Structures are given as structure tokens and as C-alpha cells.
């Protein structure tokens, strides 16, 4: 079975630009979460979507937005890019809301570099 897939794998943007990152969850999974991993740090939670609705939001500015499509794939959008947005963006999927026993499965990530 295919795992979580993300595209693109790498991306270079300049300050002020906009970026869209994409994620396809494991087949049958209805929840997608997004995390930002800055170099040398652990991942930080950005959003969770379940059944196309936002179910959680981390401490990130409004420049970050996301959505989930009827096929449960998801997009993360970042506007007005800053140098500090350079990071590995990870997508994770789970069958349901990922509470208690449920595990989140991570994709390989999209590495974003902002110049």
C-alpha cells in the first residue's frame, strides 16, 4: 500500500511569494495534519483537517492556511513568505481524529527554502 505522499519534494521561493504544498493521505484515512520542522528542531503542529473541516490549529500566523478536498487530500498554503518559513513541511494522516490509540503516519516532507 502507498504511504503518505507529498509534493513537491523540494521548493525554492523568494521572500513575499506564495507557496502551495500538497499531501495525499493513506487510502482510507480521513484526517490530515500538517507540521513544520525547522532545522535542528522537532516538528511543530500547524493544522489538522478531518472530513474536510479544520479540527485543530497551532500557533501560526494567518499567512498559513489549509484545506482538505473530498478525496481527503490536502493543501497547505503560505502567503507572503518570510526567511523564517524555510523548513521541512510534514504531512501526517490517520484513519480518524488520531486520538488515544490511533497513530499518525508521516510523509517524507517538502523542503522549502525561502531566499
Amino acid at each position, binding site marked *: 500500500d502507498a504511504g503518505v505522499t507529498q509534493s513537491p519534494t523540494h521548493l525554492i521561493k523568494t521572500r513575499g511569494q506564495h507557496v502551495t504544498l500538497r499531501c495525499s493521505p493513506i487510502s482510507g484515512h480521513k484526517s490530515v495534519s500538517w507540521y513544520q520542522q525547522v532545522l535542528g528542531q522537532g*516538528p511543530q503542529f500547524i493544522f489538522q483537517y478531518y472530513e474536510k473541516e479544520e479540527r485543530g490549529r497551532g500557533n501560526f500566523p494567518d499567512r498559513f492556511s489549509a484545506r482538505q478536498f473530498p478525496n481527503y487530500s490536502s493543501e497547505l498554503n503560505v502567503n507572503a513568505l518570510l526567511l523564517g518559513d524555510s523548513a521541512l513541511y510534514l504531512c501526517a494522516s490517520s484513519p480518524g481524529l488520531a486520538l*488515544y490509540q490511533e497513530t499518525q503516519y508521516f510523509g517524507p516532507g517538502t523542503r522549502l527554502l525561502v531566499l
Partner: protein
Amino acid sequence: AQSVTQLDSHVSVSEGTPVLLRCNYSSSYSPSLFWYVQHPNKGLQLLLKYTSAATLVKGINGFEAEFKKSETSFHLTKPSAHMSDAAEYFCVVRDNQAGTALIFGKGTTLSVSS
């Protein structure tokens, strides 16, 4: 509030010797605890998880962890290190009453020498 503290940023062991990666957590409710491993240029892989069943949890590749509520610890161990264990390890907590977000520690880099 939930938090995770990984007590060592870097651990170095010789191949065949035991591994101990230390983790303390803070959670206001009954937590779920996880250890994830991240190899260079690869995604995060779940090693093991504690979700209020047995306090000694066995994971993949010979790793195990023990949940100690009195010490708020969830240390990761392996009896004998292998070269392929060299990677970044993350201790993770989820407060199931607070929401679904995973809270990651800063990570421990494990180096294994021959």
C-alpha cells in the same frame, strides 16, 4: 499544558552496547506517548506508542520504552545498538483531552560507532 523534554541532545554509543534515550513529559491528562525516528532525508517512522495499556511497550527493531507515571518519564532503550540505528529520535506526547496535536521534543541524535 503539554510539553516534552528530551534530556540529551546527542548520545554516542558503540555498536553492540545498550542504548538509552531519556524523555520526560508534562501533560494535564492521561497522555498518549510515542517515539518516532527520523533517518536523514526520510520521513518520521513510528517506533512505539503508549496508550494506557501495558506500561512496558515494545516497538520495532528491538526498541522498547517504559511509561513511569510517578517520574513522568518515557525513556527509550535497546539492549544492543546497530549501526543502522544512527538517526534522530523524537519523544512525542499527545494530551487526548486537549486535542489531537502531537507535541514533539527537540530530538536526540544517536550516533553509533563501530
